[in-house]
């Protein structure tokens, strides 16, 4: 089956089986590394991307239901040479050990900051609950999200990426 997807502001046409989860399309067809396979069960958040502005576990979203809704992955936030605000905050806080969960963490946090640029610490913790980190980098992840929020809340609306 052919599907047209809008990923990080670009249109892509992919030919894949209808039941293929979005995660595999992003990784294998579009060659995007950010979203990771963690469980395939929607339990860990390593595959988190934004679909129409909301964080979703891409391992349990079949490509056939995505439709015209825009998909945003960590690659859409910035690059190594020009990281986005949240990516830079993760670099500044050195918020990674193995880093396998981090792209998912960033996308879940981005979805929060897009809606609530000045969240409380409790809101951040509660929002990040679905995503697992095994290295124990949680304190740094929380600090990175807080740091980005502080940057965002100093920016005018619309500049938050």
């Amino acid at each position, binding site marked *: 089956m052919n599907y047209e997807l809008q990923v990080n502001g670009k249109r892509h046409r992919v030919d894949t089986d209808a039941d*293929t989860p979005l995660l595999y399309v992003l990784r294998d067809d579009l060659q995007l590394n950010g979203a990771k396979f963690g469980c395939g069960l929607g339990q860990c958040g390593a595959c988190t991307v934004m679909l129409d502005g909301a964080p979703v576990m891409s391992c349990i979203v079949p490509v056939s239901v995505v439709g015209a809704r825009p998909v945003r992955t960590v690659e859409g936030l910035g690059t190594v040479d020009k990281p986005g605000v949240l990516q830079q905050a993760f670099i500044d806080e050195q918020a990674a050990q193995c880093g396998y969960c981090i792209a998912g963490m960033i996308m879940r946090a981005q979805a929060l900051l897009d809606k609530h640029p000045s969240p409380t610490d409790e809101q951040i913790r509660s929002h990040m609950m679905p995503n*697992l980190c095994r290295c124990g980098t949680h304190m740094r992840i929380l600090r990175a999200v807080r740091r980005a929020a502080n940057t965002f809340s100093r920016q005018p609306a619309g500049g938050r990426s």
Partner: protein
Amino acid sequence: MNAPLPNPGRRRLLAAAGSLTLVFSLAPAWSQGEGGAKGKEGGLPGSLEKEPWLDAWIRIEANNAVTVFTGKAELGQGIKTALPQVAAEELQVNPGRIRLVTADTARTPNEGYTAGSHSMQDSGTALRHAAAQVRFILAGMAAQRFQVAGNALTLRDGVFEAPGGRRVTYGELLAGRQLHLRADGKAPLRPRAAHTVSGKPLRRTDIPAKVTGGSAYVQDLRLPGMVHARVVRPPSQAAQLVSADTAGVARQAGVLKVVRDGRYLAVIADGEYRAVKAATMLARTTRWDVPASLPGTKNVPADVRARPAEDMPILERGSAGAGGRTVSATYTRPWQLHASIGPSCAVAQLIDGQYTVWTHSQGVYPLREALAELLGVDKETIRCIHVEGSGCYGHNAADDVAADAALLARSYPGRPVRVQWMREEEHAWEPFGPAMLVDARATLGADGRIADWEYAVTSPSHNNRPGKAGNLLAATHLARAFTPPPGKPIPQPEGGGDRNAIPYYVLPNARVTHRFQQNAPLRTSALRSLGAYCNVFAIESFMDELALAANADPVAFRLRHLDDPRAIDVVKLAADKFGWNAYRPGARRGRGFAFARYKNLAAYCALALEVEVARETGFVRILRAVAAVDCGEVVNPDGVRNQIEGGIIQSASWTLLEQVRFDERLVQTVDWASYPILRFNQVPHSLEVHLIDRPGQPFLGTGEAAQGPAAAALANAVAQAAGVRVRDLPLDRARMRAAK
């Protein structure tokens, strides 16, 4: 970076120049890589003992490009940053200019496993001395070229400058040759006060790619023509295959091959999800006979105690029978998982009889040995290249999936075959951290000190790493199956199940026994800190119970039994920063303390923390944790903090939540719902790590220093907050609600 050379003294310089003259006369032989008998190296520092050639560690091209080699692997612990940092300091080059090549059987030294918090001790120490010697030799060559004394030269980023502005680079001095010389470990190290790179919080070099979707993991490899495979495991290690519809699955879209070898089943497909679907179909249509073969986990302590064990005394000091008040207790730890977030993955390719295996194994050389045996080929036909994976925290399924990839590459030659395990496989089949049991008994003398100590730890092996094909899961399922070699204990002083079983305290009369179980109902191997997690949990819980019996403050009681000044310093620092002496517990709250020196020979870690326990729900909340750490001379302070913070949180997860469950037939904890780990709601509100830097002292690894102390400090805090001591891990909600 602009530092004068340390003045090695004129006599030394002349001596060096002299030897260089000799070296120059032998110059054509440099690059011939004479094998030579290695002989006894007689105590060279770190891994130089195993690999003494300088050019095995450091190579400098004519254009002054510097490449540093290590046999260790990046596991998320940050050595890709810290090792070049060490080399950069001694070489006096900008760390950003150093290219690092990590574990690769075709390119790097053989440093065994990246395990046991040894990377900085082994590889860091080797690189430090190799780099110092390279710099020293090159300084001699520059001095000879300019006909000046060594202390007349300045060195900046690999460029010597002599009076009058004459300059020469490392690369120009070597002119394309490499220093194929033996390390001697005698070159002067740069004094700590002059350090410009080491000891500074250098940013991790791998993080920018990891936060922007760069290719960072073996999971991200996409080789031309690559195909995807998934394995269908038996339901249990004892299960026998009855029937499998391989022909039906072979007809599915995209399926290239269905492999059946004994009870080893796998599918290879042209797309990843097609492989997943075909494997799912194969699993659903395969019938197995699954006998009752497991003891179940209804009563783990009783099961551990019931299994046969061999008593191995590891400490007998003084004499038994001191009079006084006797206290005894039993502590247990359940079966636990590495539980990497990313299931294990590998890519392998067989072309013209040569295998290449991209793997996140902790030991590419031992893996190569095991694969050679498994495949029945010469090890020289296999190249294992380390590529990062998801954090492993010890011996997880990294080697097993490499074996899957190699076997499937053999059955589908010419194309790279990528295999990633599914979540359920990783949870059910990785080698487990074994269930353990500790019996502790001590007598308190009238002086409030421990007059007698008796301790026994019961545990299966914590070391079933490959080396042998039988250590690879797939090998045990083939028609021509390999048998796992018998489990072995790891000898003291490092120890396996008995790691940290000998207390670091001053105990005039003490006996410690390792009750080693050669057989375990399930495959077990190294989980971060091995037996130290359980032993420190037990010893440090017991120290609190003894302090209570002695009517002593837990910190004061520990200090009373310590004589190593570095241990005393971390204990005092953690207590001070926590505000131990002024602490008054609020309702439902309590504080806990713990200390250990990892393996009794590595990093020192003391920890104080405060918890709040809701007895009606059983929920334990960590309010704050304060750690003090001494890991010798610190190379990257932020890297050390990151490791300690992670160690505390991971240990909190084990301690508060984690236990593998199985019945008589099957492992039941096969996903994150049945085997929950710590989420953001339960991580500490605040977490501080204080470092005591010891310039000039050997590097001591920090990757496993916090695991034991975190468990015990938590247990001690929970005991105070809940008013009841729980000695069986985990301290999960069910157990805390039931505790009386």
